[in-house]
């Protein structure tokens, strides 16, 4: 094994679409794996919400921008022996390649481990990727960049139709066109050539409708190689696998197809020289005769996290050990306790992944699914049969217990056929409706290319639904339960509560199909005779009191990992207080479903009936519902009915706070001023995460929002300590919090928001479940904020009170959005949360911290050039101030007509551009920044087009004048990035 003493691990940055919590889960495992070997772990990530940025397994933590300058500074400061970047996604891989190429690693004698430069180059550059695979005779999808129509047609004739044509080097991947013959190709090629900036087009053989199969392979430096699992997308090629329903293991391959692909996967990994985990993607023709390699990801990924949870095999952990030079058989499988990492997991169940989209938050976004991933999260559900796993998935990713959607129930058959043709987020429901209406399986297969095996499984479900409707017998009830129908679903079908009942028992996920008696299994519900969870509990009995922690399910926009962060902190806190902690959750990316975090894990839906199954088996004394979101809070009543005491705030409390009338009554009674719905107060927003032991309270870090507008607090830029709140106002904040705490007398935490208006303080809202700021507050205060709250819930008293006043550094939280992934979505913020993640900047001054935060969020900083301003009426005073600042720094100002008039009349030299010109200039990359706020009329298309254009050109857009102003000031007061200090928190 290697002799590395200190290793720098790069994280993945903020949660974004296509890059969810799984990287945090993987990074934690990596840090754990390294720590076990006595290595000093230095971890760098820009997001405060990553659990790996807690100093649990990492010895030193840098919450800094993940770019060359700051990582170079960390290298210089820490001088690590090695750099590990395979747990940080593509961005970190590329960053590590750049660091190596620029010689920065050599300067500090740091070795790149886990992957070598050649591998990164080979898989990230399409050209070398094709060459590398060609060398070992593995086929890739035929594609060619051409300059003319004739050339395009010749190529297509050679590889066969249909083909996809798209302008070369366009950021908009959705501009692809399908051509079924020479004629249509000629026409579309010509059009694409015109739109292409470089007058080139890419022709690619279309493999839409082919099967999509992935293998998760792991290999050590001795060339030992196993395939952890096969993964099959139910939606065929054409829809990103992140947006597909997925099943593990693959179900519809013949033995020879399976063997062929698995062998190819191992060959690729071996010949590319990958040491660690690798995801290999294939497209397999429906007749099974031909395949193409469509992707190779030599790092941990969304799929590796999913596969880890579905099999019990710790892919990221094992990869890290391999990076240190260990062979697979030298790495323990701690689930069985008696085998090693070279045992391929044997599954005796079927795992299904449902994608979860957040289109509710992005109402304008186009819901059509394609090659660009749009899902924000996913659920993992497990059953002995596909049907059970699927039905669990339906209620995990959606609100319904049955695969019906109202929108399809009353449409005609023809309309339904059209609905099946559309590949959007509701298609699976349309397919089910069609099967329910007895459309032929062949016809649905013809239209959707979904394999008949899956369609017939759906038919089994539809037949079960019909059986339940027709036959009220015990036999049909039990049959339906086995197929995954809940009592609630059965009641929906029959219209009445069933007289029968059947509780689930639990099987184990043990990596070995029960071949060995596992030491650390985790569980999923089934219907059968043996309750393995019960057997395990009895065999490992403790006297500890039990707490059931309800997880928060699939990630959605607005939950930027904070729920997960809080849940894991809560678990650790409860464990340290001597409780036995049991978790139920269905999010495979989440750290909460890691079997090494809580004492026991149940991978199941979060519906009352599913939770109750766990309660019946575990018989916990307490439950923690607070961090599971609304769904979990609502389970309080059911839990109480089953003699489980709720730790901390329960549903009653939640309702009291959420109901504005009731809450404002309470405030009135406590003599606390509050905004009413009639008056719109625009002013400085303050947010406090208040912890109370029922009597006293403590605010670890009081935050101020930069934006004055009424946007969701999670979408605002926050700073702590506050920068524009004076002492007397702070006193009022203190006074108000005191009054509220006294009135509500709660144990736990409460998020309270205030606005300063006309030099007066008003409470705008409070929330028991809003934990968006908790990770940030934890990092800024250096205190385990969740632990404090949990201890209060459990009856301990606070040792510190009041508002924490920590002098020294400034901390800025910048939300991160994924608008570029969502065609049609507007970037303007409102009350619905739209951010998907967050980053943090730390600095000696507010300006330094803000600039770092902005850089960490991915913004390209420019210190010269032009800005475009287009703002609404009410912003105009602040606009002048902002434009003045930019102008004074030498920026040229452009503005749309009304705004230009305003600025010119205030003696700010401004060029006028109408929106068409503005878009043209954006496309020509003329602007360093765009400031564009919502116009009075909500559907201002012109504005939205400007913002969208800027987004596609990666020009930074400010949708709030205040944040633009704050940013401009940070530019003015700031030195260059290389001179900003990096800090070990």
């Amino acid at each position: 094994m290697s002799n590395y003493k200190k290793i720098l691990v790069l994280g993945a940055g903020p949660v974004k679409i296509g890059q969810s919590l799984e990287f945090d889960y993987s990074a934690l495992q990596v840090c754990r794996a390294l720590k076990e070997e006595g290595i000093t772990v230095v971890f760098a990530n820009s997001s405060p919400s990553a659990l790996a940025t807690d100093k649990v397994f990492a010895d030193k933590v840098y919450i800094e921008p993940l770019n060359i300058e700051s990582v170079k500074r960390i290298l210089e400061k820490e001088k690590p022996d090695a750099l590990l970047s395979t747990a940080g996604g593509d961005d970190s891989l590329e960053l590590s390649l750049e660091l190596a190429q620029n010689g920065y690693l050599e300067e500090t004698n740091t070795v790149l481990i886990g992957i070598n430069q050649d591998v990164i180059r080979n898989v990230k550059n399409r050209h070398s990727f094709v060459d590398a695979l060609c060398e070992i005779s593995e086929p890739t999808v035929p594609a060619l960049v051409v300059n003319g129509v004739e050339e395009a047609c010749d190529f297509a004739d050679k590889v066969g139709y249909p083909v996809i044509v798209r302008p070369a080097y366009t950021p908009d991947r959705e501009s692809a066109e399908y051509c079924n013959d020479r004629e249509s190709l000629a026409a579309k090629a010509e059009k694409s050539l015109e739109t292409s900036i470089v007058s080139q087009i890419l022709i690619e053989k279309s493999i839409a409708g082919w099967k999509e199969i992935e293998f998760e392979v792991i290999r050590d430096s001795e060339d030992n190689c196993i395939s952890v699992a096969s993964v099959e997308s139910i939606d065929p090629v054409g829809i990103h696998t992140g947006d597909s329903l997925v099943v593990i293991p693959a179900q519809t391959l013949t033995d020879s197809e399976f063997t062929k692909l698995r062998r190819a996967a191992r060959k690729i990994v071996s010949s590319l020289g990958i040491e660690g985990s690798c995801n290999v993607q294939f497209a397999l023709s429906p007749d099974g005769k031909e395949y193409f390699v469509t992707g190779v990801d030599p790092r941990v990924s969304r799929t590796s996290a999913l596969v880890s949870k579905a099999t019990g095999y710790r892919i990221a952990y094992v990869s890290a050990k391999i990076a240190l030079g260990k062979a697979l058989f030298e790495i323990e499988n701690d689930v069985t306790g008696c085998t090693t990492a070279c045992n391929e997991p044997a599954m005796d169940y079927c795992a299904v992944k449902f994608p979860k989209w957040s289109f509710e938050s992005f109402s304008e976004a186009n819901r059509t699914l394609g090659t660009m991933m749009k899902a924000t999260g996913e659920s993992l559900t497990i059953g002995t049969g596909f049907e059970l796993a699927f039905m669990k998935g339906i209620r995990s990713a959606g609100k319904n217990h049955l695969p019906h959607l109202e929108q399809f129930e009353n449409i005609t058959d023809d309309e339904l056929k059209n609905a099946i043709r559309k590949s959007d987020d509701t298609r699976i429901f349309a397919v089910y409706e069609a099967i329910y209406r007895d459309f032929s399986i062949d016809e649905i297969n013809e239209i959707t290319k979904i394999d008949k095996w899956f369609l017939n499984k759906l038919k089994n479900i539809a037949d079960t639904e019909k059986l339940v409707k027709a036959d009220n017998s015990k036999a049909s009830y039990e049959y339906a339960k086995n197929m995954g129908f809940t009592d609630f679903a059965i009641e929906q079908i029959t219209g009445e509560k069933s007289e029968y009942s059947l509780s689930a028992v639990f099987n184990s996920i043990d990596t070995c199909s029960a071949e060995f008696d596992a030491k650390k299994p985790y569980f999923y519900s089934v219907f059968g005779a043996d309750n393995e969870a019960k057997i395990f509990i009895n065999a490992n009995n403790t006297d500890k009191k039990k707490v059931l922690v309800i997880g928060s399910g699939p990630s959605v926009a607005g939950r930027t990992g904070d729920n997960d962060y809080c849940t894991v902190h809560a678990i650790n806190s409860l464990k340290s207080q001597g409780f036995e902690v049991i978790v139920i959750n269905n999010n495979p990316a989440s750290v909460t479903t890691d079997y090494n975090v809580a004492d026991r894990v149940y991978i199941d839906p979060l519906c009352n009936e599913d939770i109750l199954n766990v309660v019946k088996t575990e018989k916990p004394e307490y439950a923690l519902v607070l961090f599971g979101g609304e769904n979990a809070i609502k389970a309080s009543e059911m839990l109480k009915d089953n003699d489980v005491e709720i730790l901390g705030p329960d549903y009653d409390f939640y309702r009291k706070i959420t109901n504005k009338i009731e809450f404002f009554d309470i405030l009135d009674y406590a003599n606390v001023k509050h905004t009413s719905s009639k008056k719109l107060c625009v002013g400085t927003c303050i947010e406090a995460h208040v912890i109370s032991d029922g009597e006293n309270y403590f605010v670890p870090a009081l935050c101020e929002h930069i934006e004055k507008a009424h946007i969701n607090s999670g979408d605002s830029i926050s700073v702590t300590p506050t920068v524009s709140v004076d002492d007397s106002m702070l006193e009022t904040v203190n006074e108000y919090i005191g009054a509220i705490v006294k009135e509500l007398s709660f144990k736990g935490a409460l998020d309270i928001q205030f606005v300063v208006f006309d030099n007066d303080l008003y409470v705008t809202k409070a929330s028991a479940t809003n934990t968006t700021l908790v990770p940030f507050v934890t990092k800024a205060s250096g205190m385990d904020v969740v632990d404090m709250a949990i201890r209060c819930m459990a009856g301990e008293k606070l040792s510190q009170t009041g508002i924490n006043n920590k002098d020294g550094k400034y901390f800025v939280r910048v939300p991160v959005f994924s608008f570029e992934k969502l065609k049609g979505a507007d970037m303007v913020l409102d009350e619905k949360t739209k951010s998907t993640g967050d980053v943090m900047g730390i600095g000696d001054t507010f300006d330094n911290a803000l600039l770092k935060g902005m850089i960490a969020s991915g913004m390209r900083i420019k210190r010269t050039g032009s800005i475009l301003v287009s703002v609404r009426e009410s912003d105009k005073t602040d606009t002048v101030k902002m434009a003045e600042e930019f102008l004074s720094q030498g920026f040229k100002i452009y503005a749309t007509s009304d705004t230009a008039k305003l600025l010119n009349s205030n003696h700010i030299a401004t060029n006028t551009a109408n929106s068409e010109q503005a878009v043209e200039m954006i496309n020509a990359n003329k602007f360093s920044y765009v400031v564009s706020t919502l116009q009075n009329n909500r559907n201002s298309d012109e504005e939205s087009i400007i913002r969208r254009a800027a987004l596609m050109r990666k020009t930074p857009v400010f949708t709030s004048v205040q944040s633009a102003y704050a940013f401009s000031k940070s530019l003015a007061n700031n030195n260059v990035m290389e001179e900003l200090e990096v800090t070990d928190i």
Partner: protein
Amino acid sequence: MMERKKAYLVLQDKIIFEGYSMGKSGVAIGEVVFNTCTSSYTDILSDPTYYGQIVAQTYPLAANRGVNPETDGSEIMSNGYIVREWCDVYSDGNEMNLDDYLKSRGIVGICGIDTRRLTRYLRDKGYVNGVITDSLENLDELLYKVENYTVSGAVSEISIKEPVCLKGENVKYNVVAVDYGSPRKQLNAFLLNGCNVTVVPAFTDAEEIMKYSPDGIVLCDGPADPDDEPQLIDNIKAYTKLGVPIFAIGLGHQMLALASGFKIVKMEKGHRGSNQPVILANFKKVMITTQNHGYAVDRDSVDSNNADIIMTNINDNTVEGLKYKNFNGLSVQFTPKGDVDSSTGFIIRDFFKMMAGEENE
């Protein structure tokens, strides 16, 4: 919910699993073993090591793509088959579903039982006999048969009766394969890599073998107890004196060990599945192998003057491969693959080197 015929799996300690009939309806007795493969069910059914056994598949969804009677046509060796759920076939090819396939081969099966529960039971007990039956009448009589069930004379039962000559491609070597019942498929590795293979019946003696003037002798895999036929061991002793390189697999490996004076032990837990990790001595090289056996060569009985233990199972430290010193012999517990990409591919290449008179790595 279709109407299905009830069937039962009764284990020797009277544990009853209720399920549905699959394949032929009737009675099948045998040792009940599990297998953790998620695919390759036809390979399992035709594997001679399952001779006389009832196989339970731990993966719950069996034969999703059915069975192709043309390509998966080998004879079924197991007495019975247990799955949780078999699937009807929806592809347009000529595949049969598992139920029809087993019917066509006259094999008794059962589906719809909790195979995980069964596996846990088998795992804890080690060796269990059982019966698949469509009726619980005369249960005591059945149980008596179950308790007293043993397999004997298996090799003579399933070994070929007359020699067969198989022609390979680009032939360099003549190999004689002594057949203990393994399917022809296992010889493909030799045929594809430059060997003519003469398959001879199990009881062929040394003199007879020399008539084919072989460059090498292969002792094939076969069913169960290596002590079962002393005559075979005596024959093998004679083979080792012929000066011809010997390569032995599975049952052949165990009988070769017996012929060399080593001992065989019944394992506490058999190796049942496709993910058995085997490590090469002195290397950090692991092979992932498919196995089904309950006997192994006793590690302590291996005389280091006569043989080196060159391969070991990582999970339980059992002997997986031997290199002989007193004659030119190599033997492994599992079936090595012939293709270059496979982690076990080098083993057959080593045997080729032995035939060519080269030293192995």
